[in-house]
Each structure stands twice: as structure tokens, then as C-alpha cells.
């Protein structure tokens, strides 16, 4: 039995946070209108939501990628507003979870949030002074809900323009019931020195989480946005369907880092896309450790001359997990360049899939694409697949390289012969394998990631 329940939900446990406002389970126009009412949204957003709902209802479930047949919208609660009151004291947090926080070195302020002691992460405390400085430079960094209230015109101009509701069933779902996420605007020429971070968390059984994030980086600006996720465990499956839209204007550079560690009852279906104008740079660092199932392929529309898109991607799939990740590049202009490096690890019966799409348009003269994906499989129960799609017009050059290796019984034996035991040795091999990508992640997250992987390997070794 142990094989199928792994001891990795460091942050997962049921939480008694009260919900003043929540919709009933299931999805129809009444539920969507309720959400819009509670948020006191402008009329155009309400209409968008309802239109998105009808798209969601018409579209069929995707038949490729992970098996989604278990999703049951009638059992999902699509909106719940957390109360502001703290629901639990630190003393009530289980010892095991406290220990894990310690072992991976989570700061105390974050522990309280992650452990549900505080209903909201007190970003004001951590980022208070940063926020003042940002505001003085004209930077907008708001939750999407308050962003819509404060900057309706900005939202209206960009919302749904990159990921329209017709894009896919779950983009439509997000369009209908979105809640939370971030609105970020960086004015011309402003370079934000410190990463902007956002924590997301699911708080209610059978509740979906549907963040909507919009980032607009105006000409010549720079921003690094970091998104990290942890979630509680529930016996019923939780659905997470986020949409992220990023506009990289001329000469701007945006880095978007994700550390995804949803508990492994979560189905995580994310549509992320960037449009990159002339000489703009979009960089995705995408770390996927958690969730039961994930489908996520950050897209780069390279629309202007010399636009660049880079993706660094890690997926680590253990027992009961299927992580289907990758990336897309659409070259629409001359001299655009794209690179993708993916490293995936599967163990304990886990499965990883890699999908890469390269589309070289008729104007993509002298464009360049390099895709490299390496998969490491730790045992015979586990699996990895690669599905490349190349639409090459011959205007540019495309290199695609894929390797799959089984973990070295030989590598393990080598480390063991030096006195380094089985689970630590596995952790070293896995951490070493993903190291080229981890070194691109800010150091505090990289340390956490490597510790999480060591904990994972300890769990796997117990089996």
C-alpha cells in the first residue's frame, strides 16, 4: 500500500478555515453570476464570465495528455472566500509538518501561512518597503481582484487577449470562475531589482483554484515574478486551472519562475502564454514537483524581430503522479530565437511526459530553436515519454535532442562504494541531474527544492 501514498505532503493537512462566502458545488450561470456579484465586478467582466461558461460547456475534455476523466464539475466548489480570522494556533500544527518546515528551511513568517495559522500570507510585512518603492516608480503589483477594481482599463485592454476563452476547455473554465492571481504592470524602462513573489493556496475540500495572472512589461522594463504553491491533502480530487498572460513589450525582459508543489490529489491544468515584441526576452523557469496530474506548456509567441523565448523546465514525478509538461514556441518574425531545456525524473511508478511545439512561420527568417529534453527514470515501475511537434518552414534552424536514461544502478553502486547510502545517493543523482536548471532559480528556492527532493528520495527508499 505504501507505494501509492508517499509521505511528501509537507504542507498538506485539512484545515478548518471558515468560509463566509462560497458557492454551492457545481457550475452554472447562477454560480458564475454569484461570483461576479460578490466581487462587485464591472458589467463587461460579468459578460465575459458568462460567455466563457458557455464555451466551457461546449468544449469537450481534451483527449490527449493526462487522463482527465475523474474531473467532476458537479462536485467542485468553484468559489470560496477565506475569512480574515486566523483559524488555528501554531501549537495545533502537527509536529511532523513543523519538522518538515525546519528541514527544508522555510522562514517562520512563511511557515505560519503555509501551516494555515494565518489565512493570508502577510506579504505586507515582507514586501512592505519594497512595495512602497515600487509604487513610487509606477509599478502595479496587486491581486487580480483588487487590480480589476483599481485599474479596470488596464485589465480590460489585456485580459483574455493572449489566452482567449476559446483556447481550451480549461482556459474557458478559468475565464468563467477565475479568482485571485496577480496583476503586474511595469512602466517603460523600469527595472525591478527584487523578484515579485506570490503564494497560492487551496483552502477548501473539493474547491477548485482558478487564478488569473496578467503581467504587462512595458518597453525596456524588467521584472522577475515568482510563483510558489503548496496545498493541503484531501481525499477528493482538487482541480486547479490557472491562466497566465504575459506581454513583453519592445526590449523588455520578463522572467517567470514557478515552483509547483501541490499535494498529490490536485489536478493542475495551466495555460501560460507570453507575447514577445521586438528584442524582448521571455524566460520561464518551471519547476514541477507536486500534483497528481499536471498539464502545462508555457507558450512563447515571438512576435517581433529578435524576440527571444527561453524555457527551463523540471518535472519530478513519484508514485501516482503524471506530469505532462513542456513548452511552445511560435516564431512570427525574423531572427527570433528560442531555447528549451527540460529535465524530468520519474520514480516509484511516476510518469513524466514532455511535449515540445516549434512552429516556424513564413516570416521567421533566420530564426533559431534549440530544444533539449532529458529524462531520468529511477526504476522499472516508472515511465517517461517525449512528444515533439515540429512545424518547420525552413526559414530558420531547429535543433531537437532528447535523451532518456535509466538511473544508474552503476551510479548508485559507485556512491554506495564510497559509503554514501541508498536514499542519499539517489537524492544526489537526481539533484545532480536537474542542477543545470536549479542553478537558475533564486538560491533560497533552489535550496528548498534540493531538500524537497532529498525528502522525496527518503520516502521512495522506505518503500
Amino acid at each position, binding site marked *: 500500500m505504501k507505494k501509492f501514498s508517499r509521505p511528501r505532503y509537507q504542507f498538506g493537512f485539512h484545515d478548518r478555515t471558515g468560509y463566509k462566502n462560497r458557492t454551492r458545488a457545481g457550475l452554472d450561470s447562477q454560480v458564475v453570476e454569484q461570483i461576479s456579484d460578490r466581487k462587485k465586478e464591472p458589467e463587461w467582466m460579468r459578460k465575459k464570465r458568462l460567455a466563457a461558461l458557455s464555451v466551457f460547456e461546449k468544449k469537450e475534455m481534451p483527449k490527449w495528455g493526462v487522463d482527465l476523466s475523474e474531473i467532476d464539475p458537479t462536485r467542485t466548489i468553484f468559489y470560496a472566500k477565506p475569512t480574515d480570522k486566523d483559524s488555528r494556533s501554531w501549537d495545533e500544527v502537527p509536529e511532523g509538518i513543523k519538522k518538515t518546515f525546519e528541514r527544508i528551511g522555510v522562514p517562520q513568517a512563511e511557515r505560519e501561512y503555509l501551516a494555515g495559522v494565518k489565512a493570508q500570507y502577510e506579504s505586507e510585512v515582507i514586501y512592505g518597503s519594497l512595495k512602497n518603492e515600487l509604487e513610487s516608480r509606477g509599478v502595479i503589483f496587486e491581486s487580480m481582484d483588487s487590480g480589476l477594481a483599481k485599474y479596470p482599463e488596464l485589465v480590460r485592454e489585456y485580459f483574455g487577449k493572449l489566452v482567449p476563452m476559446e483556447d481550451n476547455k480549461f482556459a474557458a473554465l478559468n475565464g468563467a470562475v477565475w479568482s485571485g492571481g496577480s496583476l503586474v504592470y511595469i512602466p517603460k524602462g523600469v527595472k525591478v531589482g527584487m523578484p515579485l513573489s506570490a503564494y497560492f493556496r487551496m483552502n477548501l475540500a473539493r474547491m477548485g483554484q482558478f487564478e488569473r495572472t496578467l503581467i504587462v512589461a512595458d518597453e525596456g522594463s524588467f521584472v522577475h515574478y515568482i510563483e510558489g504553491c503548496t496545498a493541503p491533502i484531501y481525499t477528493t480530487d482538487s482541480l486547479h486551472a490557472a491562466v497566465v498572460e504575459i506581454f513583453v513589450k519592445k526590449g523588455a525582459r520578463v522572467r517567470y519562475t514557478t515552483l509547483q508543489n501541490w499535494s498529490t490529489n490536485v489536478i493542475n491544468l495551466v495555460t501560460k502564454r507570453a507575447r514577445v515584441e521586438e528584442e524582448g526576452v521571455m524566460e520561464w523557469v518551471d519547476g514541477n514537483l507536486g500534483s497528481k496530474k499536471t498539464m502545462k506548456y508555457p507558450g512563447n509567441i515571438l512576435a517581433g524581430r529578435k524576440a527571444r523565448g527561453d524555457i527551463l523546465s523540471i518535472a519530478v514525478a513519484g508514485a501516482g503522479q503524471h506530469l505532462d509538461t513542456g513548452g511552445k514556441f511560435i516564431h512570427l518574425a525574423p531572427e527570433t530565437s528560442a531555447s528549451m531545456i527540460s529535465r524530468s525524473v520519474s520514480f516509484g511508478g511516476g510518469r513524466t511526459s514532455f511535449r515540445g511545439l516549434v512552429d516556424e512561420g513564413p516570416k521567421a527568417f533566420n530564426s533559431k530553436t534549440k530544444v533539449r529534453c532529458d529524462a531520468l527514470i529511477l526504476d522499472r515501475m516508472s515511465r517517461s515519454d517525449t512528444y515533439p511537434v515540429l512545424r518547420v518552414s525552413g526559414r530558420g534552424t531547429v535543433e531537437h535532442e532528447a535523451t532518456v536514461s535509466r538511473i544508474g544502478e552503476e551510479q548508485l553502486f*559507485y*556512491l554506495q562504494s564510497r*559509503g554514501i547510502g541508498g536514499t542519499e545517493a539517489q537524492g544526489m543523482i537526481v539533484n545532480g541531474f536537474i542542477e543545470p536548471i536549479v542553478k537558475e532559480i533564486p538560491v533560497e528556492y533552489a535550496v528548498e527544492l534540493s531538500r524537497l527532493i532529498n525528502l522525496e528520495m527518503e520516502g521512495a527508499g522506505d518503500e
Partner: protein
Amino acid sequence: MNSLEIKNLRVNAGTKEILAGVNLTINSGRVQVLMGPNGGGKSTLAMAVTGAPGYRIMGGEIILKEGKKSINILKLPTEKRAKAGIFMSFQNPVAIPGVSVFELLRLALRSKHGRTLANFVEFFEQIKNSAESLGLREEFLKRSINEGFSGGERKKAETLQLLTIKPKIAILDELDTGLDLEALKMVAKGVNLAAREGAGILMITHNPRVLEYIKPEKIFVLAGGVITRSGGEELVGEIEEKGYEKVFQT
């Protein structure tokens, strides 16, 4: 005084019998040489002592003696054998991307001593000096172990591990193969130093030239899964005179 006594060791690889009753003792502070034709079982002996997967022990014992204490290491998993003081150098050591030479040495020593090293600076200096004695620069320590290493660098990295870990017993599987003369001298110097520091060493080799730099106390010939010959310098003389092949055949 430590020793490793291999008694009547029989080992199968798959269903095939490779070692058919090997007897051999390795004593601390001494260098002994093991030779023999390809397929004679030399590497299998090293693998069996270290506890490699895929080698089935069909009989016999391997006893590690430290003073009055003695343990049959056949019951221990590989990492515990290493902790007990057994080391082997690999003929073709595998690359582990992202795990640096330094990190490997640090963790190997932490495992040996059961704790993190107290004096990091001193430890680093020691490793740096050992590396220099093998003609390796400090930058070498930052490279991923065996990844993109030349043949010579692999052997030197194995020797560096021998010098850093300071095992009680070391089986060196063709540590001298594929080295140019200068590298051979440096590696041989390292092996002699390890023996002077107390390691009991069994050197598996094909290379008579190494005997110019390492003076073994005894030479064994392993052929057809058993020790067919053993002797002192007279056997070296005989090998030099008749060549390996003839000595193996007798």
C-alpha cells in the same frame, strides 16, 4: 594491524561460475599485486568484495579483522562495507553529472566519520594538496565526477579518493591502465603513500611497467577462478623474463 581474509570465495555472475574458491589475505600497510588473463575473475573479486549487485556469493567468507575484532563483511550492504574501511577503485568509473569531485569526497568522509567535518578549511587544503600531488588543479575539484574526464583524469580522481578516504583495505582495479608515464608515476606515488599510511592494498594490473614504481610484497595470479600462482619478487623476475602469458599458463 588490519587484514582482509578472503576464504574459499565462490562467486557467480548470473548463472556462470566466475570465482571457484579464492583464498587470499590483504594486510595493512602492504601492497600486493593480482594478475591474470582476461576473464580470469580479477574484477569479479573486486566487485564481490565491494558487494556489487549482480554478483552472487555461492560460498566462502570475507573477514575484515581489526585487532581482535573481526566481521564477515559479506553480510553488509555496500555502503556499510565502505564505512567499515573497504575501498575499490573502478576500472571504468561512471560519470555522475552535477555531483562534483569535492562534494563526493566531502560526503564520503562525512559518511566515514559519521559527522560533518569540523575543520572545513583544513579539509579543503588537504584535498587540494592531494590533488596537486596528482597533477590536478583546484578547478578539477569543482567538475562533475568523471563527466568528460580523460582516461588519465578518471584514474587520478580514483587515486584522489583513495588518498582522501584513507580506507583500511583497498582493491585497485587497473588503476594503472591507460596512463602515460608521468601520470603512472604520480598514481604509483599515491598508491605507495596510501600503503605507508596503513592501507592494505591489492592492485589488479596487466601492466608490468607499474612494478618499476610499486614494489609489491607478493604477486598472485588468478586464472580460471582460482589463484594459480603466488610468489614474491622471484615471480616478478619470472614474469619479466617469460612474459605474462607464459606465467599464467603454468
